[in-house]
């Protein structure tokens, strides 16, 4: 140690030049969590988030999904669960802010409301994805093509009504 201290005097210091020079995080670093364009707004990430940093607010016809970076613990649970690669932990780490209200990332989605009762079914993009998947398996009923119009309880009602109507004569 003694000699090392002496030699260090003439050696280049170990110090990095950051903040004057970028110091990129390695690949796979768990940094600032951001929604990507792939997000469909299904809300799986909000369900698994340990600190409940992702909130979903449905207002009228839009759904706002917001991740609070002050609350986020950068654990990658959301990214692991997301089937659509709709949320990503980026390599950004410079998140310092003077205004607490600024540190968030949000994404907005159009909502589909039930035509019967006006309740939220899901977001438009989520529905499109579901439709694609169902079409792929070939389960989509040609007659009943309006899966996005009614919520489950309304659909039950409608189905029952149709059944009653069908059995009306006699």
């Amino acid at each position, binding site marked *: *140690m*003694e000699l090392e*201290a*002496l030699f*260090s005097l003439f050696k280049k*210091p*170990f*110090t990095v030049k950051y903040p004057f020079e970028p110091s990129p995080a390695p690949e796979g670093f768990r940094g600032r969590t951001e929604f990507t364009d792939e997000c469909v707004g299904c809300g799986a990430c909000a369900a698994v988030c340990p600190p409940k940093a992702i909130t979903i607010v449905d207002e009228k016809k839009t759904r706002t999904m917001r991740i609070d970076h002050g609350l986020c613990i950068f654990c990658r649970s959301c990214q692991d669960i997301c089937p659509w690669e709709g949320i990503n932990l980026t390599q950004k780490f410079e998140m310092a802010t003077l205004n607490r209200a600024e540190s968030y990332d949000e994404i907005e989605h159009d909502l589909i409301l039930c035509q019967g009762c006006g309740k939220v079914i899901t977001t438009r993009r989520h529905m499109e994805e579901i439709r694609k998947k169902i079409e792929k398996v070939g389960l989509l009923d040609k007659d009943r093509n309006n899966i996005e119009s009614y919520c489950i309880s309304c659909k039950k009602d409608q189905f029952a009504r149709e059944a009653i109507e069908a059995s009306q004569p006699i």
Partner: protein
Amino acid sequence: MSLNPLISIFIIPGLLFTSVMTFLYAGMYRKVRARMQNRRGPPFLQPFYDFVKLLSKDSVRPEKAGALFTWAPIIALASILVVPMLFPVWGLSFAGDVIVVIYVLNMSSIMLAVGGFSSASPFGAVGGSREVTQLFAYELPLAISIVAVAVRAGSFSLTGIAEAQEVHGMLFYQLPFACIAFLSIVPAKIGLQPFDIPEAEQEILGGPLVEYSGYRLAIFTLSNQVKVFTVISLVVILFFWQNWWMFLITGGLLWLLFIFIKVISARVKTEQSFVFFWKYMAVLAVIDLVRVVI
């Protein structure tokens, strides 16, 4: 060698010269220490920034603080500033000023202890008592080695000692043991490892300085930094004097040596430093004193 006394007091080697050298030494300390620890370290002017910032900050006096709380830093600074005026670099001179130097150097240490005691904090009290203990530990070898130098040079004034060395060569060659004893005292005197026991930040949070803030802290810190320059210059004058520019260079080199020692050593305990100074260093100093007297 002395010019107008006013110049001596205010310009060289008095206030102006001393303050420039003080910040130079302090900046060098921060920078060299950082580089020895393999990091880049603060800018050279860092001690100056710290000083101005501390002056601009609020300063409080604890309710239970003693009367000397405010005066301790001021007396410490004032007393330590006397020493450089006596340096043989166009400074003042009178017979027996070495005695004044010893007295005045102790004054600053005592004021540190007094400040600690009067700040009504257990850390301050422990720091103060450690400072006094430390003073007792190194005072004996310090006094003996200075006396040895004075006797050898045949003069009790700094100028006289310097002149004697100009004629007969450095006293280091003639009094190596006393010189070693004196060098070992320097870290204790200026509060560096291995003997920074009173100020131990990790143990007692900076000891006597614990309750100081704002301008009081700035003055105390400054007085400590002036002490660094003063004590090292004193070593040069007493043992390594050649001429005034070699005085600056030797001082810088010595300071490098002490920073190096600080960087590579841990803080020892009070009783260990006591044993070190009384058992070994005092004996070394006495050997040289006896040699000189006989």
